[in-house]
């Protein structure tokens, strides 16, 4: 069995996002990068599949050269192989171009039974790459997976739980399948020093457009139908009224305000 995990490097949330006031674009240099939090669950689940059912786990990421760091963390956690998709031609990808590029890499890897993505990335925040990828690969699409119940390798079958609005849906599907995972699925392991050192030395192949069997105008900026034309910071929320009288009085004032403004109806 072969599992591919897609991971994205994102700016750490604790770092303040800065904007270039002239170009109106985001400044990413000098901002600490982390693995997209949902993708840590994706990596962990890939490794658990390997441990439980036997599988090769390949981690891929499209991004700048520094995304190798994220891939090395995945190797240290226990992934077998990592591939970086990096080239000037991939820059400026929206989700359509991203899923295109990732799908070509997965086709090149061949014989993939399961692709695992995070539910969404914390920077672009679209949750569109997973479904886009499933569509391009023609894999069964299972979003919001909170548990893999069973994998039947012989019958190429998979039973998983999905976290929906009012509860948990249990579904069975045939592989190949693409799953997007939520935090509830597992607790990602912390790699030990030995495996971190070993991963640091690993060679990570870098694939560019020449390595993929695709059309030039579908990569990067040219292949991205959406264009960001303006980026701005929303007006900061301002702290409002603090009630600092005794509990009874404060609560009374609060309820008074909320009900006169029609925010609560009592």
């Amino acid at each position, binding site marked *: 069995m072969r599992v591919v995990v897609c991971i994205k490097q994102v700016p750490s*949330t*604790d770092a303040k*996002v800065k*904007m270039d006031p002239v170009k109106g674009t985001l400044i990413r240099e000098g901002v600490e990068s982390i693995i997209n*939090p949902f993708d840590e669950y994706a990596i962990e689940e890939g490794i658990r599949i390997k441990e439980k059912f036997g599988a090769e786990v390949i981690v891929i990421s499209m991004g700048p050269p520094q995304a190798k760091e994220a891939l090395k963390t995945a190797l240290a956690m226990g992934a077998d192989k990592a591939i970086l998709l990096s080239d000037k031609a991939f820059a400026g990808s929206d989700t*359509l171009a991203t899923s295109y590029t990732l799908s070509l890499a997965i086709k090149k890897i061949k014989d993939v039974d399961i692709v695992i993505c995070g539910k969404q990335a*914390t*920077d*672009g*925040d*679209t*949750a*569109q*790459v997973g*479904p*886009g990828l499933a569509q*391009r690969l023609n894999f*069964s*699409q*299972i979003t*919001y997976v909170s548990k893999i119940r069973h994998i039947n390798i012989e019958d190429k079958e998979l039973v998983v739980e999905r*976290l*929906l*609005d*009012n*509860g*948990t*849906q*249990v*579904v*069975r*599907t*045939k592989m190949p399948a693409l799953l997007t995972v939520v*935090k*509830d699925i597992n607790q990602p392991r912390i790699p030990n020093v030995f495996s971190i050192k070993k991963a640091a030395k690993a060679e990570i192949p870098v694939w560019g457009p020449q390595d993929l069997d695709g059309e030039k105008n579908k990569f990067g900026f040219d292949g991205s*139908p*959406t*264009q960001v*034309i*303006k*980026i*701005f*910071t929303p007006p900061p*929320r*301002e*702290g*409002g009224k*603090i*009630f600092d009288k005794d*509990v009874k009085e*404060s*609560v009374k004032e*609060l*309820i008074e*305000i*909320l009900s006169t*403004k029609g*925010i*609560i109806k*009592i």
Partner: protein
Amino acid sequence: EEKIQESEKQNYRGIMVFIEHELGKIHSVSFELLGKAKKIADELKVPVYAMVIGDSINEIIKEVKNYEVDVIYAVSAPWLYDYQTKPFILEAESIIKHSKPEIVLIGATTLGRDFAGALATRLETGLTADCTELSIDKEKGLLLQTRPAFGGNIMATIICPYKRPQMATVRPKVMPMPHKVFGKDCRIIQLQPVSGPKDLDLEIVDFLPDTVGKVNIAEADIIVSGGRGMKGPENFHMLFELAELLGGAVGASRAAVDSGWIPYAHQVGQTGRTVRPKLYIACGISGAIQHLAGMQTSEVIVAINKDPEAPIFKVANYGIVGDLFKVVPEIIKQIKEKKGK
């Protein structure tokens, strides 16, 4: 260049809304989108379309007719009873190829996000996620789609100049609910299904309803949320009681979820759910940036925390500095008294 020609763009006309429904009930975001679609359509002087996909959808169609829709495209078949990505995408693609709308709007719900990302890829067009504002650039006739990213820390305005349709998912409860208008002409076009039972690639084995909170936080107008300050699972009953009095749902910080006090489905924040209720009451939550990412666009935020320096007060419209074990029961008591009158 595979950018489409101006002449080809002219072939696309009208605003299409995807009608999300489950168990015979239409999701409120679909009405909100019909209201917004009508406004945009009037500006562009084009028709409003709706697409209804499902099984036994006559009642749904009847309801949609009351929202100033010009044409409803409908596909019905027994295997479309439950939503599944593959057959729904095939039907939606067929409807869009038939009707050629210039804009397609979909609710940014759990189902909508599963559906929209796959559909836009199939149509090879642009999709803007989770919009909170839509307007028209009159000169160019383009849809200006504004959305939060980076957990609401920045806003981006996005266009899709060359591909059609322009597609957007829109957050529930951002656009106002439109009024019903009875008796307006509305054409119904029934299309033959293009999918079949073979396209059902998921077998739904079971559904386990959420037993802890009956109201889902993504949809609730009022959320009462608890954090580490709640001290233990046994204290959450206060929050459930308050939520029930207010007709709301119970949320939680990651600290509370990771301590096992309440299931993950209730987690609000970067690795939980993004919510935008009319009222968010944070009890014993410090207001870490990852928590704020999931709730800072709530209309009104109330914070209850014993630490006056807690960052949650920086985003709260109203705050009470004090012990939540005194404040929350007092709120419950006073509301009950008021209700009793």
